């Protein structure tokens, strides 16, 4: 890979390699995983079954985010109703006890669902690093086919194990072609 040099406008984002098929990119991902990289990703126009294991991805943190916000929404909804209608300004409605849990349940439930839903959307965006205007990979001509028929692996230079020559060799050995350095912008 003598032809590959860092073009130093804003440093190197990382290295990108193209693969022939879903199977090829799947097995290449296993090799990158086993080589111990952590800041890298696979780009494909279709979901590839089993890719999570091939990449060694751990379970999503989303459940904890959504669960926390759902609990906050539900308890906040309950306390708000209980405080307003049983403590701060008790009003007799339909001869029911002021603090009866039954009447608070629908709003408690709905606020739990609302907070869960909103936190699911924004938590997903935050974890995915969205919204953003651009991505260094978009400067690669070849990469456009990732939304059509191209399968790619990109390894970031931020990765502790990153070494432009060794990383490129690894991808080439794994069956990658059109290997290119992608500039950071």
């Amino acid at each position, binding site marked *: 890979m003598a032809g590959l040099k860092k073009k130093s406008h804003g440093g190197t984002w990382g290295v990108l390699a193209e693969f022939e098929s879903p199977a090829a990119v799947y097995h290449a991902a296993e090799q990158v995983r086993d080589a111990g990289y952590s800041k890298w990703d696979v780009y494909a126009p279709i*979901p590839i*079954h*089993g890719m*999570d294991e091939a990449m060694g991805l751990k*379970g*999503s943190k989303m*459940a904890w985010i959504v*669960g926390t916000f759902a609990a906050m929404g539900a308890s906040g909804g309950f306390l708000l109703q209980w405080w307003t209608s049983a403590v701060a300004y008790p009003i007799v409605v*339909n*001869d*029911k006890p002021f603090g009866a849990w*039954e*009447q608070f*349940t*629908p709003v408690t439930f709905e606020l739990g669902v609302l907070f869960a839903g909103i936190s699911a959307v924004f938590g997903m965006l935050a974890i995915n690093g969205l919204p953003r205007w651009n991505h260094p990979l978009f400067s690669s001509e070849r990469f456009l086919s990732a939304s059509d028929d191209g399968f790619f692996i990109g390894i970031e230079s931020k990765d502790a194990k990153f070494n432009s020559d060794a990383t490129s060799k690894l991808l080439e050995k794994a069956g990658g072609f059109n290997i290119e350095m992608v500039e950071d912008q």
Partner: protein
Amino acid sequence: MAHAIADKSKLLSAANTALPVGAGRMASLALLALGGITIALTILGAVLGDDTAKKVALASFHVGFLVTLGLALGSMILVMILHQVNAGWSATIRRQLENVMSMIPVCLVFFLPVAILAPMIFHWMDPHYTDGDVVYAAKASFLNKPFFYVRAVIYFGAWLYFSQRLYRLSIGQDSDGDRWRSAKARKMSSYGLLIMALTTAFAAFDWMMSLDYHWFSTMFGVYFFAGFIGVATSLCALILIILRRAGVMEGLVTQEHLHDLGKLMFGFVVFWAYIGFSQYFLIWYGNIPEETMWFQVRRTDGWMPYSVALAFGRFVIPFVVLMARPARRNPMILATVAIWLLAFNALDLFWVVRPTVHTPDGHSIMFGWLDAVAILGPVCIFFGLLVRKIASNPVVPVNDPRMDEGIAHKNYV
């Protein structure tokens, strides 16, 4: 996936899909013996006891019958849904649901004593209670003895027809591999589901709600359904976990299938709570005497601890446990929750049926030994016969056209 299909003939070999001859015989005999003893004790307790004891015995036997009926009906509805949506993932688990579903004739046998002795606990059958009762008079065109029995015949006729047809289509496919049997089962399931929805709802009105014949609730049919569909899923998971331990179904039923059954259990736990609360909430808020009296009994007079136990045991605790993905993927935890839910479903039915039996001066009678044996009797016999049924067939529908999909099934989230 390619890997799984290459091994298909090995996975579907007799060693992996058939239990050894005589498997489960001891368990079956033990359950049948326990069932026989408890039924004998029930009869003894009823015969030697006073009128109230007779009513208690019959009401709790009725609870035991409803537990077994719910398992069979829930399994049948699940089988129909899986056929109807052409669910490939379920090809390897469906046989166990079919085994439970095929037990409907046993439920019919349990129903006979209840039907014959019905006037003892169904007070609307007794003119002593209904003379001059305007609420009953308004319901009498539906709630009268002849029509009650005609409806029972219709329900059981439909259930026997669908369960035995669907069962034979699946068993027949084991030997001849005819793919058209799957298409027939799917077609039957379409109108079958509609009939099941109506018959189970009306059966719930007839056999559970009418015990308190003054009561009104349009939600009750769904309440029964929401309960039994969840325990049918639980029982299926439990059977599969036991069979996996027995060394069959290797690679056929995996953690992935159990995970999905765990999701369904979780969903139906929430659904049951949703329906149960909605029924309670509207009645609580509306505050109309002929509706609230049903819950008033269950909130006072010693039944309140049962109601609280039901809310926590049938909803809060399984809800929290099954929420965690690792719990749904762990066979031991899933089996524990499944047994837990089976027990609390029995409590649910007990809580619906038994508070309608009082002492002659109107006091409630709490759970006693007679209730325990009367519920255990039919339940043990049902499970004893079910073990035999499971052992007598291949544990998966070996020639199901969706088998490849079922074997390769995985959860990606």
